[in-house]
């Protein structure tokens, strides 16, 4: 089977535009999460600044805010890529949880006649914008959507169906999402603190990122998607398993596909939402997988939980850290507050980072693990 290389990437988050900007902000410990009143309570969130889209023009006047983020992000990644979006050997994949849900008509939501609310309509709109001749694939797999899209693209490329995959993940904060997570009492009023003893919920984030994968290493960066797997807790639709056994299965399967063991892993880019149960579950899964000594970080303390974008943008930053030989810090973390034996990355370190495990977990009981490896 063919190797699948990371070719190019881009992202937009509340910290700003461009990978370098985000990366440097994270190293400097900056955080784009704010608190705001929301229906008799307070929630924390991070938004993409509007000047990023206001300074650009778009062909179609009805382009939504999310679609604008996606177009900017894909344009940015493609601008320095060898992948030709108009070539039939390039496939587009999208990962989102709610897409253009903000376009539902509040007076009569069931009357749907515009706004590309159906996710595949949005995907086709974007892939057509870039002149791609193929029907794009859209993944809607809760908070692991981005990782599921990467796993799907790996299969499409390694099996020889396509040479290049343009994977774009994005979600925006809407009243819909804020009301939902608030009703679950899952949102922290203050910036989230993954794995910390004082954590009390997630921060909602919006972001968009693009990852271009290819069957050739045309950039000479030598970073491959070595393995990827998904699992289900088969336990509860909205709460993680207590023991982390579902996530363990995904991690174990991804490592096997990559022909690696836990001793080979240099860093773990965790899901780390900042909710009590998620972070606890992850700590147990990593301990079970014999990863207790490997530095673990969550990026959500910097720009929140970005839902369908999370798997893509957190992979982008994790791969960039591999190139820079840096292990990233875990945002918002001070004192360990999980019972599984793990090593949280407090401050960033300049050190070998050739193999990174990226994980995610989400509603529906799903978990995912993806292994990125630098071929040295």
């Amino acid at each position, binding site marked *: 089977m063919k190797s699948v290389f990371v070719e190019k990437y881009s992202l937009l988050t509340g910290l700003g535009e461009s990978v370098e900007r985000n990366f440097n902000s994270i190293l400097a410990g900056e955080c784009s999460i704010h608190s705001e009143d929301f229906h008799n309570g307070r929630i924390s969130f991070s938004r993409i600044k509007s000047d990023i889209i206001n300074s650009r023009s778009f062909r179609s006047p009805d382009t939504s805010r999310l679609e604008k983020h996606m177009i900017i992000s894909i344009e940015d990644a493609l601008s320095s890529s060898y992948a030709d979006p108009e070539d039939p050997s390039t496939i587009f994949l999208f990962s989102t949880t709610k897409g253009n*849900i903000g376009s539902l008509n509040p007076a009569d939501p069931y009357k749907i006649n515009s706004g590309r609310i159906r996710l*595949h309509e949005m995907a086709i709109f974007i892939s057509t914008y870039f002149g791609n001749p193929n029907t794009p694939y859209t993944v809607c797999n809760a908070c692991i959507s981005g990782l599921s899209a990467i796993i799907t693209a790996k299969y499409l490329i390694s099996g020889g169906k396509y040479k290049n995959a343009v994977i774009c993940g994005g979600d925006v904060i809407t009243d819909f999402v804020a009301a*939902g997570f608030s009703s679950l009492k899952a949102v922290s009023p203050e910036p989230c603190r993954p794995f910390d003893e004082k954590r009390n919920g997630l921060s909602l984030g919006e972001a968009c990122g693009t990852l271009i994968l290819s069957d050739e290493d045309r950039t000479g960066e030598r970073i491959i998607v070595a393995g990827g797997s998904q699992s*289900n807790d088969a336990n509860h*639709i909205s709460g993680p398993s207590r023991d982390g056994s579902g996530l363990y299965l995904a991690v174990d399967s991804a490592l096997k596909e990559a022909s690696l063991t836990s001793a080979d892993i240099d860093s773990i880019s965790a899901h780390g939402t900042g909710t009590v149960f998620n972070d606890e579950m992850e700590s147990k899964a990593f301990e079970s997988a014999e990863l207790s000594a490997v530095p673990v970080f969550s990026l959500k303390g910097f720009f929140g939980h970005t839902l369908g974008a999370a798997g893509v943008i957190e992979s982008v930053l994790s791969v960039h850290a591999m190139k820079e030989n840096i292990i990233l810090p875990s945002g918002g973390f001070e004192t360990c507050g999980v019972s599984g034996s793990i090593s949280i990355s407090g401050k960033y370190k300049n050190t070998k980072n050739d193999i990174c495990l990226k994980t995610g977990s989400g509603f*529906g009981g799903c978990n995912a693990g993806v292994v990125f490896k630098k071929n040295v």
Partner: protein
Amino acid sequence: MSDIIIKSRCSIDSSAAVVNGKRMPFSGDFSSGIRELYRSNEINYPKFYKMDDLSKLAFIAAELALKDAGMLQENYTVKTGVILMTSNSSLDTDCRFSQSITDSDNYYPSPAVFVYTLPNVMAGEICIRNSFKGDNCVYISGLCDWGFIVDNVRFLFETGKLEACICGWCDLFMEEFSADICYVERCEDVTGYRLFTSENVKM
């Protein structure tokens, strides 16, 4: 020779549920018709009544396919997955949730509704019922793309991640709905079985 076979299949639309060629009429609106299938097939799983309509549809289709194959509540390997495709995603429940937050004087967002505003929860419900722990993913497509589903599921078998899988199409928005779900597994002696290929599933 070892290969992947279609062990069982169930399709449901507004006229009938068809399980491996056996036809049961679907009568009335979705809500009454799906409950009737639950009752007449003697399914005993009270969580069914808490599910949203999309999950009810996926659950019953999977349940009938597994039951007819004599597979229900068997000891599955952890390498059983659920790979589904839908067009309308969770839009039906999205609209219901949206109505609960539109009016600030009548604001009642329900967490029990919100958790169903993701389509992969239907895959999660099937996994919980049967202790399936393998790869699970939901894709969105305007039409049922069996070619993609078959290739994707076969890849998961070939890379050693799956040994069995519930896969197919499940879509619902208001009173428009359709499901077409296969239970597929690796089989050492495929004689007499239909192989899991895109040509065979389209027949």
